[in-house]
């Protein structure tokens, strides 16, 4: 299972792989998420936009976007479920998992985004 940190526009985004145990934990957490309130949508535009997960064990899921308190799971037929990630806890968990394989500067950007303000040293 690969996780892409959706940051950049011109450059390729950084990608890391999840270990099978982490992938299983992620899928079980996603399965327990409630539906998001109407109008909830992932972050868009220039800058950090969230994390995009592909290659999951569920054959029917094409991609999962974890972004700004919302999780969007799209299947291969184009149908999507929009779920609520209260307190961005799933996003933070993925960011923790990214720390081992991400460039420290990019990791700093990610932590700053999830903190919602400038990172304290």
């Amino acid at each position: 299972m690969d996780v892409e940190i959706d940051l950049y526009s011109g450059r390729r985004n950084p990608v890391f792989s999840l270990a099978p145990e982490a992938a299983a934990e992620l899928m079980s957490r996603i399965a327990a998420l409630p539906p998001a309130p109407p109008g909830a949508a992932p972050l868009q535009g220039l800058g950090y936009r969230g994390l995009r997960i592909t290659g999951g064990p569920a054959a029917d899921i094409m991609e999962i976007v974890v972004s700004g308190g919302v999780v969007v799971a799209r299947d291969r037929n184009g149908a999507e479920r929009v779920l609520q990630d209260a307190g961005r806890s799933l996003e933070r968990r993925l960011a923790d998992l990214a720390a081992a394989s991400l460039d420290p500067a990019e990791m700093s950007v990610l932590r700053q985004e999830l903190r919602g303000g400038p990172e304290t040293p």
Partner: protein
Amino acid sequence: MLRITADIFSGRPDPVSDITDANEVRALLREVDSNRNLFLGEAPAGSGLGVRGFWIEPLNDEFGSEFGTEPRLYLPVGAQAHGGRAAEIGERLVTLMERGEPAASGEAAQPLDASLREFLIPQLAAPARLTVTDRTAPAETEAEAERGSEEATAAITCTIELGAFNPGFWNNDSTVRLSNNCYNYASNWRTNTFAQPGRGCGSMYKAITCAEVTRASLCDGMHHRFDCFPDAESPRYLVALVIAPGPGFVDFHWFRKQKEGFWGHKPGPTDARNTDNSGNVIYNPETANRGPYTVFCGYLYGCNSQRQRIR
């Protein structure tokens, strides 16, 4: 009864057709009423050669309340159209004209038949691209004048193209969306390689700075703004380069000017759009909310050989 006149010819009488079927007239008037913004009271001046539009006019007072106060209405089409539905309504008018009666008062006007229809239909839609003149702003020349430049009073002009905003091309297919970035969008060329400035010419940027990304783009074949390309290099798009300087977040991004007057862009693997980070339509990439891309590097022109070179 309703009369439709196709505004096509310059020297010959235009085709005119009378629609006598009351149901068809009412259906058309309902469509006119719900798309009133596409119609004018008069034909615009200087609409050029080829099909310019259609006049519709009731010939009696039976449809007065449905038609409104104007004695006749004009539907501009093609480059002069006031909206995308003008072409659709124009096509409906052509079909009605074919089925209608050639107007008795016309002086040997050509009837609207199948051959004329084939000529008309492709011209109804607005062209996908506009050719315009890009001119140095007066302020620039005045500033140069103050500095005493001898060439200051002569504005520099280049002929460029502006493409129609068509985000569906980039967004509808997930492979196209995920595999093409802002440089693909600015170049209007899908490579599915997440194109990088300079990679196509064998000299990719070595740092993400205005100077280096500009150098790499020029190597691919772009020109600085007002360094004109010849017509053979059409389409010559006006694009803008910005940089996210960091620390931490270091990247480049491109915008492309569209024929609708705004700027389009594609943030990495996400949807192409014409709005900034505040959700506002981008009319000026220098002042748009660009998130971390805070450095505005400048404007360049793309061209046909450049876009085919990008990798």
